[in-house]
C-alpha cells in the first residue's frame, strides 16, 4: 500500500460528465448539499430519512455515475456500521431506562430503543455518504472552494479573510501531488537501505514512520520560503483588491434544482416533526 505512493495520488474524485447534476452551478451544488446535510443532522425519523435516501438515489441515477462505483465505497462502511449497531443495542439500557429489556449481556441491558437508534444511524450515515459522494463526483474541489468563497462573501465584509482561506485550500490541493513525489523519493531511499515499511507491529511501524514523515515536514519549510517570494514577486499582497478570473452563472436549471431541494427538505422537516417514528 505504502509503496504505491505516486504523483497520481488524487484527492478529488471528480468524474467529468454532462449530466443534469454536473451542469449545475457549483454554488448550487454546494448550497443544496449544505441544506440536505444540515437537514439530516437535525431531523430524526424513519420517514424523513427514507424520503432523503430515495431523493439521494434519484440524484445518483440522474448523475449517470455507475451505481456500482458509488456502492463499492459504501460496502466496507456498512460492516463498521453493523458493528456499531450491535454495540448500540447492547449498551442501550442506560439511555432507555423505561424500555423493556430485549436481553442482558453481563451487567448491560439491550432494548428496542437501541435497535431503533442504531437503525436511524445506519440510514443517516448512508444518506450522508451518498450525498458526499455525489458532490465530490460531480464537482471539482477547487471549483467548490471558489463557490464557497462566493457564497460566504457577506462574511468577507465582516473581516473574515475568505479570499485568503480559499487560497490556502488551493495551495493545499496544488501541493498534494508535489509532496507525494517528495514522499516517493523518501520511501525509495528507505527501501534502498533495506527498510521494510509495511511490516511489523505498532512500535516497528512507528519507528520506521519517523524517517519518512519528519523529512517530509522539514521539506515544506524550504518550499514555503520559495513560494512566499514567488507570490510576492507576482504582486500578491493579500485578498484586498484582488479580482477573480473565474465567474459562475446561474441558469434556469439552478432555480429548478433549488425549488426541488427546498421541497424535499421541507417535506423531511414536516414528516420529521409530525410523524412519531
Amino acid at each position: 500500500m505504502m509503496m504505491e505512493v505516486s504523483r497520481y495520488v488524487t484527492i478529488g474524485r471528480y468524474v467529468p460528465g454532462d449530466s443534469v447534476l454536473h451542469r449545475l452551478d457549483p454554488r448550487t451544488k454546494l448550497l443544496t448539499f449544505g441544506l440536505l446535510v444540515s437537514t439530516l443532522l437535525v431531523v430524526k425519523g424513519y420517514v424523513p430519512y427514507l424520503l432523503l435516501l430515495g431523493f439521494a438515489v434519484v440524484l445518483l441515477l440522474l448523475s449517470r455515475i455507475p451505481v456500482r462505483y458509488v456502492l463499492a465505497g459504501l460496502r466496507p462502511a456498512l460492516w463498521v456500521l453493523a458493528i456499531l449497531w450491535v454495540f448500540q443495542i447492547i449498551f442501550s439500557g442506560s439511555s432507555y431506562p423505561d424500555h423493556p429489556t430485549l436481553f442482558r449481556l453481563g451487567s448491560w441491558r439491550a432494548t428496542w430503543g437501541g435497535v431503533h437508534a442504531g437503525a436511524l444511524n445506519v440510514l443517516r450515515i448512508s444518506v450522508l455518504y451518498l450525498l458526499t459522494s455525489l458532490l465530490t463526483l460531480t464537482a471539482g474541489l477547487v471549483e467548490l472552494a471558489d463557490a464557497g468563497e462566493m457564497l460566504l462573501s457577506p462574511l468577507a465584509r465582516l473581516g473574515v479573510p475568505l479570499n485568503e482561506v480559499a487560497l490556502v485550500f488551493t495551495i493545499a490541493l496544488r501541493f498534494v501531488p508535489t509532496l507525494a513525489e517528495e514522499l516517493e523519493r523518501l520511501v525509495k531511499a528507505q527501501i534502498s537501505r533495506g527498510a521494510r515499511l509495511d511490516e511489523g507491529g505498532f512500535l516497528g511501524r512507528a519507528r520506521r514512520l519517523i524517517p519518512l514523515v519528519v523529512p517530509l515536514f522539514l521539506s515544506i519549510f524550504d518550499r514555503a520560503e520559495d513560494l512566499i517570494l514567488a507570490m510576492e514577486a507576482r504582486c500578491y499582497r493579500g485578498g484586498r483588491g484582488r479580482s477573480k478570473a473565474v465567474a459562475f452563472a446561474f441558469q434556469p436549471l439552478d432555480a429548478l434544482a433549488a425549488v426541488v431541494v427546498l421541497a424535499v427538505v421541507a417535506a423531511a422537516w414536516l414528516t420529521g416533526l409530525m410523524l412519531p417514528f
Partner: protein
Amino acid sequence: MIFLDDVSYRYPGSDRLALKGISISFPPREMVGVVGPNGSGKSTLARLCNGLYLPTSGRVLVDGHDTVSRQGRWEARRRVGMVFQNPDNQMVATTVWRDVAFGPENLGWDRAEIRRRVDEALELVGIRDLASAPIHLLTPGQRHLVALAGVLAMKPSYLILDEATVSLDADTRASVLRMLGDIHQQRGLGVIIITHDMSELALADRAVVLDAGRLCFDGSPRELFRKPDLLRSAGLEPPPLHQLAAELRRLGVEVPEEPRTIEELVACLAR
C-alpha cells in the same frame, strides 16, 4: 530604468555584506546577463530590483519608484517580473490557466482583461493547448513555460530570470532562451538573465559580472570573453564554444573572433 544607487545588502542575522556598494542601471528594452559564481550576490541583486529585499544602504529606483515605500514596491513589482529556479515552488493553482491568472488577479484586472492577457501569454510561450491541464502532469520543461507565462501575463516592462533555466536540459534551455530573445525583440521587453553559466550570455547585449558582492565587469559579452583572466578569478568559465575557438586559434587555425555556432568552427577547420 532600474537604477541601483550605491546599494549594499546584508542578510538578517549575517555579519557580512552580500552586496557592497553596487551602482548600476538597467535601461528598458535591453537584454543583460548578470553572471557570477555561487555566493557572488547575483540573486540578491535580482531580488533588490523588485523590492523582495530592501537595501541595507543606498536606493533602488524602478522607473523612478523607490522600493523603500510600500507603494514604490508595488509599482516596482508590477514592472519587474521574476521567474525563479524551481517552477514547482512558484505555482499556486492546480491547473495551468488558473495559475497563469494568479498574477493578473493580484493586479485586480477585470475578468475580460485577465482572460485576454492569460490566453495571450499562453500563446506567446506556445502552451495554449495546455490551458486546462493539471500542473502535476506537466513535464519539467512545460512547468518552466507555465512559470514564464504567469509572469508575462502581467505585462511587465522588465523580466528577471533568476537562474530560471539551470535545471533544464540543454535543448529545452536553448529553445526557452531563443523564445525569450524573440519576445525581447518583438515587444521591447527588458530581460535580465541571472546565471552562472556563460553560455546563456550568447543572446545578451550586455554582460555584468559579480564577484564576492562587488561589480567587477560591465560591458559587452564579446569584450568579456576576451578576458579569460577576469573570468577565471571570478571562478567562471568561458562558454565551451569560446574555449574551443581559443584552443583552435592556439593551434593556428583561423577562426572568427565571435563564433556563433559549432558549425562555424567546423567550417573553419574544413577550409
